[in-house]
């Protein structure tokens, strides 16, 4: 047992730093560091730069075009990216549908979808939640009826993140009405350009448009887009959820935000916020090592299971605490607010903390979602209670 990095690890870290110095798109870097919102093209440019580096599949096996990195390498990669304040790598293709396809998909599907996911030629979104089924995901009602070599899909999905940008959506659909609601669910890939799909924005309390409702009316989906067996979708969904929860904590990004917060508050006269920050930082270190312990167990042949629920709960709680501390640091300067995109340059408040403050409250409000989505934290606790404590 030791905590030291090998020479090879250190060399690898240098490679990541080189990428960040030379290949990470300059325009993305600039916007990120100014706290500006990125466009769709910015996100594509960033992901493609990772692909060109050969790192898009940083947590994929080599045989599907992944890096095959060790947990230590993944840790270093994520840490350096976090310190450099890069955008979050979009999970929908790389961490969600990708692993499902290479684990449960057939050869044609692997060939058809995986390369485009890695190269970021396709932007994916997730069709899980429905208006009537939030935490009780398995109660979903969107129907797919087999009709020759197609499925006809009717229903709606909600809270679909960035559906407005997406080329494809992976959906849980009901192909059969069964006694047990978890049966009769199938996992379907749907081209967003198909006729009958409508995307409507949902504005969140921070004023942002990130999530959407997606409506399906007689949408014709080729049967070849069914993943695995019909009626086994719940198995794949659970596999995916465990993977999704795993990356959700965003420790490296939190470290970066923490650094900014410390700089902002270092001259504050009152010790109270400093103590809160220390308390938060300690918990963040604990979370980081919880992730590392889980990664180590994975490398020894384990699978991300209920343990990832801890990371989801603690990770989102810490993210939310961080945003609260930002709001506290901003004080009354959270009031002037022109929306999540911030102020335009012709009209900024006199207070020199305005950008910080406006973004602080925007993130605070936006991050309330983190304890709700991906299976609410209450649901995660139910999972731990059942799977680990056996009660």
């Amino acid at each position, binding site marked *: 047992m030791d905590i030291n990095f090998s020479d090879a690890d250190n060399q690898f870290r240098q490679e990541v730093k080189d990428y960040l110095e030379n290949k990470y798109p300059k325009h993305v870097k600039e916007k990120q560091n100014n706290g500006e919102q990125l466009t769709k093209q910015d996100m594509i440019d960033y992901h493609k730069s990772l692909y060109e580096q050969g790192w898009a599949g940083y947590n994929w096996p080599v045989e599907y075009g992944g890096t095959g990195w060790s947990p230590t390498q993944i840790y270093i990669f994520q840490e350096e990216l976090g310190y450099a304040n890069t955008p979050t790598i979009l999970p929908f293709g790389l961490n969600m549908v990708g692993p499902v396809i290479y684990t449960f998909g057939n050869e044609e599907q692997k060939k058809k979808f995986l390369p485009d996911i890695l190269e970021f030629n396709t932007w994916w979104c997730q069709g899980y939640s429905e208006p009537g089924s939030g935490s009780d995901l398995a109660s979903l009602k969107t129907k797919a009826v087999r009709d020759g070599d197609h499925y006809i899909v009717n229903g709606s999905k909600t809270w679909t993140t960035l559906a407005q940008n997406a080329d494809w959506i992976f959906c849980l659909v009901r192909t059969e009405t069964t006694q047990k609601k978890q049966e009769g669910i199938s996992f379907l890939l749907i081209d967003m350009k198909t006729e009958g799909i409508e995307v409507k924005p949902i*504005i969140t309390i921070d004023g942002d448009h990130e999530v959407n409702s997606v409506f399906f009316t007689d949408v014709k989906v080729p049967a070849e887009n069914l993943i695995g067996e019909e009626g086994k979708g719940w198995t794949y969904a659970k596999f995916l959820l465990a993977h999704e929860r795993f990356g959700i904590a965003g420790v490296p990004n939190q470290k970066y935000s923490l650094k900014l917060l410390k700089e902002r508050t270092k001259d504050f006269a009152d010790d109270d916020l400093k103590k809160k920050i220390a308390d938060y930082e300690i918990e963040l270190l604990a979370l980081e090592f919880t992730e590392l312990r889980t990664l180590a167990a994975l490398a020894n042949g384990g699978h991300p299971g209920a343990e990832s629920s801890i990371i989801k709960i603690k990770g989102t709680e810490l993210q939310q605490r961080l945003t609260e501390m930002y709001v506290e640091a901003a004080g009354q300067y959270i009031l*002037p607010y022109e929306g999540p995109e911030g102020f335009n340059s012709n009209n900024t408040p006199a*207070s020199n903390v305005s950008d910080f403050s406006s973004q602080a409250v925007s993130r605070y409000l936006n991050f*309330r979602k983190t304890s*709700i989505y991906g299976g609410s934290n209450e649901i995660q*606790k139910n999972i731990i209670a059942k799977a680990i404590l056996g009660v």
Partner: protein
Amino acid sequence: MNLSYSDEQNMLREQVLKFCESDYTFDVREKIVESNYGHNPETWKQFADLGWLAVPFSEENGGFNFGPIELAVIFEEFGKALVAEPYLANVVMSGSVLESSSNELAKQTISKIIDGTTQVSVAFSEANNGYNFHDIETSIEDGKLNGVKTVVLNASFANSFLVYARNGDKPVIYLVDAKEAGVSVNSFSTVDGQNCGDVTFENVEVGESSIISHDNDASQAINAMLDLANLCICAEAVGGMTASYLKTVQYTKEREQFGQPISNFQVLQHKMVDMFMEAEVSKSLLFKAMLQLDGKDDEASKTISGLKAQIGKSSRQVGQAAVQLHGGMGVSDEMSIGHYLKRFTVIDALFGNRNYHLNNFSNL
């Protein structure tokens, strides 16, 4: 000791409640917020007609001579309905400063506030003083006022400003017309759908006649205004917390998951009990604070700091829990529930946040 509202106070509550239910539904409120920074001239006219703009002013000044208790009654109901009108800025804050003055200009201004023909904001905060509102740089020299005031509430609509400034090292409050040469207003929507602004004074000519208050009276007026304003927004938060837990209870009874209303789940029940308890103990402390302020108790300021600190904690907990229990709907802009959380966040940030008032309470 008597902890029952008077008949008059109960009637006032009924009146505000009825208005909010009939004329200020959430849909109406959203339109006002989206189109006009939270202010609707017609609503304001209704306030004037109902006599609400006269509430805290002395009879001598044409008011009803109501005190902190009646204001708390109004704000509790406003909090439930998320009323965004600039009642705090005009009637409470400017009202408090003007009422403390005996000069004629103050009296004239009050009468125009009461009939709804003018709006006045107190411009006291500055960019670099944090919550130390007496640490100001705006100053008068050779009859010219210079300085920048920040987070001036309702700056978009204010016809004039009560400007807290220094004359040498002595505090003074001037009434300055918003159209005066050298006054410029840069206003913003606020995160909770109202408005505030930076107000810059550049060589604005002010005379003796525009002095509302000076020396010790001026700083006392600011302190008294802060106490009353804090009390009012705390009452508003208590109303908002009450609405939040009631709406959450209602929602969980209707929302079904796993084949039953989610209100059946014990964890959610206990979370709602926590919300209820936070609302109740906050309300208790509000009682203490408003009664002390009403009775001009020496400890009133300390209790108000305690109340503000408590509200900062309780309302955050209630607001966050309400959003959480509403699931995705909680973060959706079209539901009212998330707007309570936003208002709670602003309330904590205004006039000294929880940490500031915890220190205050500890040191007073």
